[in-house]
């Protein structure tokens, strides 16, 4: 029931996204713009541009993810269907899961398109692409789930455009720190064992968020 309802809601969101295409396009453009602005800010003459790649990559994903998250519940809110979508036979969890999957899809595609651009712009290459991609996947899963939770909680709150990053960024700090460290270490040619602790930390964060987010969401929404 849970999975079927999640899939139905996700299908609906995918159809809406395929027809309008606006949010995804803006998210991608925003990500590209972030990279350009970071290049203005961080590139120095006589210093290797590649050293900036980990920071630029992760902060860009953190920022551009916010664009998607702020519009995640827009359709339900504008159509006035939020209360209905929250009261399914499987509770409010299908809505949260479908939104998290939607966000994961958007940010995943953005990352795949953005990664080569960053590497080209900053004249870098990935030493251990599998490990970096694994870290990116773990980071995006955590961001999507926690982001969907915060977006869902803030739907009716004043100034939520400001408050969402204010809450989300400190909560995502472990993922950003670990993600940047992993990317830095792979660039420095560190052995895979050195990365295990960081990957375990990201995995632990994702597990925590995946377990607690639906529960917290239900406690707040269904009461």
């Amino acid at each position, binding site marked *: 029931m849970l999975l079927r309802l999640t899939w139905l809601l996700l299908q609906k969101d995918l159809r809406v996204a395929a027809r309008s295409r606006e949010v995804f396009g803006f998210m991608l453009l925003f990500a590209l713009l972030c990279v350009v602005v970071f290049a203005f800010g961080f590139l120095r003459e006589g210093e290797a541009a590649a050293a900036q790649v980990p920071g630029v990559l992760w902060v860009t994903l953190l920022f551009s993810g916010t664009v998607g998250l702020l519009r995640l519940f827009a359709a339900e809110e504008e159509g006035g269907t939020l209360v209905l979508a929250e009261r399914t036979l499987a509770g409010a969890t299908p809505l949260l899961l479908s939104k998290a999957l939607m966000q994961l899809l958007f940010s995943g595609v953005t990352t795949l398109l953005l990664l080569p651009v960053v590497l080209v712009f900053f004249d870098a290459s990935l030493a251990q692409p599998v490990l970096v991609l694994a870290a990116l996947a773990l980071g995006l899963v955590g961001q999507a789930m926690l982001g969907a939770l915060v977006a869902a*909680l803030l739907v009716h709150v004043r100034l939520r455009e400001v408050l969402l990053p204010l*809450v989300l960024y400190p909560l995502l700090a472990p993922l950003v720190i670990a993600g940047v460290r992993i990317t830095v270490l792979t660039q420095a040619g560190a052995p895979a064992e050195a990365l295990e602790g960081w990957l375990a*930390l990201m995995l*632990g964060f994702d597990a925590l968020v995946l377990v607690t987010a639906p529960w*917290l969401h239900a406690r*707040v929404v269904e009461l």
Partner: protein
Amino acid sequence: MAKIASPRPTGFLALLSVATLLVLAALYCVAFVARPDVTLGIVQKIFYFHVSSAIAMMLCLSCGSMLSLIDLFAPSDRIDALAHSAIETGLAFALMVLTSGPLWARKSWGAWWTWEPRLTLTLMLLLLAAAVLGIRSMAADGTGRKIAAALASLAAPVAYLIHVAVEKWGGTHPMVLKGGGIQSPGMQLTFRVAMLAILLFAATLWTLRFRVLRLEQRLHALRLELSAQDVRKQRPGAPT
């Protein structure tokens, strides 16, 4: 109506007096009993308030997070007010730690700020507490309380992961207590007095904010009752 806060705050006044006396005693000890540190000089005296404030901050914020979780399980106005006032008090002490810390760091490490694990964690805790309080104040009464409670209870395990991450990232912090850095009896006495004073000061602030919040809740309930009475007056036929 349930008794919310006693009109004569005898207990609170007693707490306030004891805390005030202890803070004064701590100031006296810091100034006259504890000798200046041999290597760091007079700046080391920040330590007595810095470390006790950090402990007060951790206690307040963990209590706030735990009470928020309890409030999610079994919603009650009392628990909610306790949790909210705990987070507010924790935020005040986080500010205290982040003010006294750089003053000490400048002297002992030569820089106002380093991205050292405990500094980073304290800063993140400050940001998280501020965000939770901000959301609570922006949202309408009932929802803001629930949202803040959900985020505050999530913040505790996340803060632990931030702690793990920044520790792994590395750094140096003076381990005064573990390394047995304070050996002179005067310093030890001063530290104990300062610790007790700051903890009682935190308890006083917490109680004060708790009482204010309870009074606000009572005022809100009275307003609701009053408007309900007005409605009944306008419709005389309605059941009373």
